[in-house]
């Protein structure tokens, strides 16, 4: 879902070049994975996390050889614009004390951003202190929104999302080693030629530039 704008933009030149319409379906990775499992007529699947790609892989629904880790992302701590407080992202910082109120992120059991956030917080030893104050949201946009509205004092979201909002400040970045790497794997679902071409297209520089503009990290294969 975080890919909505970027992908829409990237699809345009592809359509122009290959004269094939690209049909994009944006939904939660889980929903998409299940649709594909049930035979959705998809050519390419791009997931916001590895687990749903693994899931489909396990069911033999994707072309394992075509799987690539397309993009990466960073986890950041945000606060409403101008309402931030100084944070040092390391184990010695008493985050629980600095945090007066609630923290929002994706649901920590299931929504990818939440899972990463919990890992990071645990890694930093902050989890125990904030556990009861974590507001799980349906997706990363909702978490961002709550912070924008000032409903939550801080939030943990992807950098891509945080950067596009003018109403929040990034007050901290979680080191890459504090959580499982955030990757966006992509793979072909059908062996069709169009699928191959589209996957190819995604990995070209022209696409890469657009991704980068939205704050994604391009991953070397």
């Amino acid at each position, binding site marked *: 879902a975080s890919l909505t704008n970027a992908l829409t933009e990237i699809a345009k030149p592809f359509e122009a070049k290959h004269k094939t319409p690209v049909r994009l379906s944006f939904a939660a990775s889980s*929903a998409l994975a299940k*649709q594909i499992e049930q035979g959705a007529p998809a050519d390419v699947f791009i997931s916001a996390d590895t687990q749903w790609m693994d899931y489909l892989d396990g069911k033999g629904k994707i072309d394992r050889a075509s799987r690539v880790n397309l993009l990466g992302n960073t986890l950041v701590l945000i606060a409403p614009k101008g309402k931030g407080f100084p944070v040092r992202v390391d184990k010695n910082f008493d985050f629980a004390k600095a945090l007066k109120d609630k923290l929002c992120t994706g649901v920590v059991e299931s929504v990818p951003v939440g899972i990463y956030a919990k890992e990071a917080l645990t890694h930093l030893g902050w989890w125990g202190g904030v556990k009861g104050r974590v507001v799980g949201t349906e*997706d990363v946009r909702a978490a961002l929104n709550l912070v924008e509205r000032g409903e939550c004092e801080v939030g943990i979201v992807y950098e891509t999302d945080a950067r*596009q909002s003018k109403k929040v400040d990034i007050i901290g970045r979680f080191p890459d080693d504090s959580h499982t790497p955030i990757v966006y794997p992509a793979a072909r679902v059908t062996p069709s030629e169009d699928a191959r071409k589209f996957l190819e297209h995604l990995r070209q520089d022209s696409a890469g530039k657009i991704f980068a503009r939205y704050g994604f990290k391009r991953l070397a294969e």
Partner: protein
Amino acid sequence: MLTPEEWSALWLSLKVSVWCVAAILPPGVLLGWLLARKQFYGKALVEAVVHLPMVLPPVVTGYMLLLALGRNGWLGRWLHEGLGVSVAFSWKGAVIASAVMSFPLMVRAVRLAMSLIEPRLEQAASTLGAGPLRVFFSITLPLAAPGLVTGAILSFARSLGEFGATITFVGNIEGETRTLPLALYTYTQTPGTEEPALRLALISMAAAFAALIGSEILTRRAEQRLSGD
């Protein structure tokens, strides 16, 4: 005024909602009548099954539809291979998702209205030579008209706003299954799109308004027809 995407979403939403209401009206009326007038074994079970889609999160309902009616689902495969009909990932699937979600509203409204009809009017019709079918269509149904209107408007509204089951069952494909709520969702997934999101919300409201005012007129007419005002 509206962008082509907005038009397409609005048009799709209306199409899905109208088809949804049209599709559930007949079975809803029938079931509502059965529940209001007949005592049968397993009635409570039927009730419960009908209401199930209301009780479960829409996503779950959508998932169950996917399991049943997806190309690999037991029913879907049969439909697909046997009849060449495929509902998954098409607007027809969106109609099905909406229909399942709205069905309990239709059934309940019809049942309520029918249970409040004076049964002696039906008896009077039968002594005038009207068989069960004519009684049903010329007496029961018109007298339950306010219930049908209520059921239709609730279903229409529910269907206009249906999101969870639809996106889970048929995905979010522009021009095919991206109804107003899904388009709205798509915007909310990207930052800085408050303005188009708001536009879509307003379009939804306008569509709803128009439908509700139409229904209000229908409702009032149905009520007046019975009271003679």
